């Protein structure tokens, strides 16, 4: 899943070397935490959160395929 998130985000940003993906286990499943360069926040969130929405949709689908409930949180 880490690799998937990085593969989606890397070509969208200006500072791909600053991308980090970590994960936390919680009661509701796994939360993946995506960290990007502050200047790239707009590039992964998009107008009205459209890019972030598309990334989450794909990550949820991949999670469902492995019978996992996954969340994605984006930080700078």
């Amino acid at each position, binding site marked *: 899943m880490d690799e*998937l998130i990085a593969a989606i985000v890397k070509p*969208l940003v200006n500072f791909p070397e600053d991308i980090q993906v970590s994960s936390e286990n919680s009661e509701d499943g796994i939360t993946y935490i995506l960290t990007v360069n502050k200047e790239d926040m707009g590039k992964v969130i998009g107008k*009205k959160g459209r890019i972030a929405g598309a990334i989450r*949709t*794909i990550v949820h689908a991949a999670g469902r*395929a492995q019978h996992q409930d996954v969340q994605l949180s984006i930080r700078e």
Partner: protein
Amino acid sequence: MREVIKNGKSIDEAIEQALEELHATLDQVTIDVLEEPKRGLLGIGAKPAIVKVILKENPIEKAINYLRDIVEKMGVIVEIKATQHDERNVECQLTGDDLALLIGKRGHTLNALQYLTNLVANKHSDHKLKIVLDAENYRARRKESLEILAERMAHKAVRNRRKVKLDPMPAYERKIVHTVLQPNRHIKTASEGEEPHRYVTISPES
């Protein structure tokens, strides 16, 4: 990114040699003249032209490689067949076993993949590109069910004399609804709300 450095008696000759080696045409490359040619006197002091020719990355190829990489990391094995209809429009057919996963509920996952693929394509393109993703003829099937839904909701709006709101849809799905209901003089359609939650409304014509 592939590039070659070539020399020749003239700039044009050097470029021609470089294009031959790259199997490219002039519009697929950027040219950097490193050295202007000098004729010299009676062949003494003559210097060849030196050019650097860089093959531009094809934005469509780049976008499709991006899509392929994502789908593979989702754990789905698919074949992607891209057909370029004209300068702007590209259609990608996905074939494989786990396509339901890639399509998602009401095409949400397919639409998300399509959105991101277009984003990457247009980041690298000098003109607007539109890539449509399709799997198992999903787009055609969805069009058909949207048309049936549109007719049913139009009927409901007339029967109840009340405005009917449809679920949020992407622009090209809303267009299908507007188009199919356009000849119907008993109702009028409109789009309301903000992207990405914009939806179609059908109101009875009073």
